[in-house]
């Protein structure tokens, strides 16, 4: 939201490297790991802990285990790879159940809804699950998780 429109990379314009990494920042503004931690936890934002455990956040109740643990994720993947995974996990892990967080094209979905209302999407407001800056923030946080 804070980044200027010119610096922001639109979902349709993502530039991939080796098909799994996105080297360039999506927002043009460095990510803030503290805000990224919030995106990871908040149900209304990334809600990543719905599927992933993170031992670095022992106070967060009810962490899911549908995906791999975040422990050591910053050691396993480079920043560019983490950006690729968070922006479009299905590009990196074909067929993954992990949602695509950076795609604003309703035509790519079957019966896209208006958030959690059960109603049809509104073409005026349909947007990415996370903003460019929120993805930068999450990636910045994930790079700090180098311990197993």
């Amino acid at each position, binding site marked *: 939201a804070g980044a200027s429109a010119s610096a922001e990379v639109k979902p349709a314009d993502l530039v991939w490297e080796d098909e799994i990494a996105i080297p360039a920042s999506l927002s043009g503004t460095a990510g803030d790991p503290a805000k990224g931690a919030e995106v990871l936890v908040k149900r209304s934002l990334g809600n990543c802990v719905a599927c992933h455990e993170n031992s670095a956040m*022992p106070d967060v109740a009810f962490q899911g285990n549908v995906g791999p643990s975040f422990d050591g994720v910053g050691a396993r993947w480079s920043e560019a790879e983490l950006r690729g995974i968070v922006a479009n996990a299905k590009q990196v892990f074909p067929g993954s159940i992990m949602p695509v967080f950076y795609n604003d094209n309703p035509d790519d979905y079957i*019966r896209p809804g208006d958030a*959690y209302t059960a*109603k049809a*999407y509104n073409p005026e407001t349909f947007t990415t699950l996370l903003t460019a800056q929120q993805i930068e923030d999450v990636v910045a946080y994930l790079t700090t998780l180098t311990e197993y």
Partner: protein
Amino acid sequence: VALSGAASADPHPDAELIIEGELNVKVRAEPAAHLDGAVPEIYSGWLFRTDETRSLQMDDFENPAMLGVEAGQDAWNTVEGAAGKSCADCHGDAAESMKGVRAVMPKVNDNGDLWSTEDYVNNCRTERMEADALKWNSGDLNNMVAYISVQSRGMPVAVQIDGEAEPFWERGKDMYYTRFGQLELSCASCHEENYGMNIRADHLSQGQINGFPTYRLKQGKLISTHNRFRGCIRDTRAESFAMGSQEFRELELYVASRGLGLDTEGVAVRN
């Protein structure tokens, strides 16, 4: 907190559902042949719940769903509509006339349409009693379906999936594997590939419907199969389907068939 995973990861290994100390309801089964090895074993949702929730269903005085059953029984005997009839006037004792009915639902009617239990009830109301149809998932309709379901308690799920039912079943199956919504999740994503796992606070079961209508502690009332389906699809950030829609009847048939081998629970309790 980290325990959210391992501590409750699996269906209970050996719990048995014995109601009132005498009726043993089958909660584990060999998968039906049509599942083609998709899951190694079939489990009732009951096995994924806590000790406390499971025990509620073993005792009819503790089982809050039984209040709905009682209300359904009262309605069974109550005259309604311009024809001046009650259900009992035509069907007599539900313990006999409705025995086994819920276990075969949804099923194809004489006109070749696939109908859920709710449709049969409403058809009798409108066509035979000249009363209003009850709203799908309303308390009154859920209570009646609960009363009918309890008459099939402990009887094996026996839905027909071949012959005239097959095209409906095929469409339901397609729907089960469709990745709906902006989160692109199918029923299978959660209930086939990840049962036993946790999604945030939720411990995923196989999404069986042999216990429906079900009393949800979280909502404090009975809910219908279609209400559950509607919520699960909504949670994929999708435009859901209407309760009572053709799509949900077909999905209901397919999901019921994934529970072939289990017994009808005749009103379950879940969280």
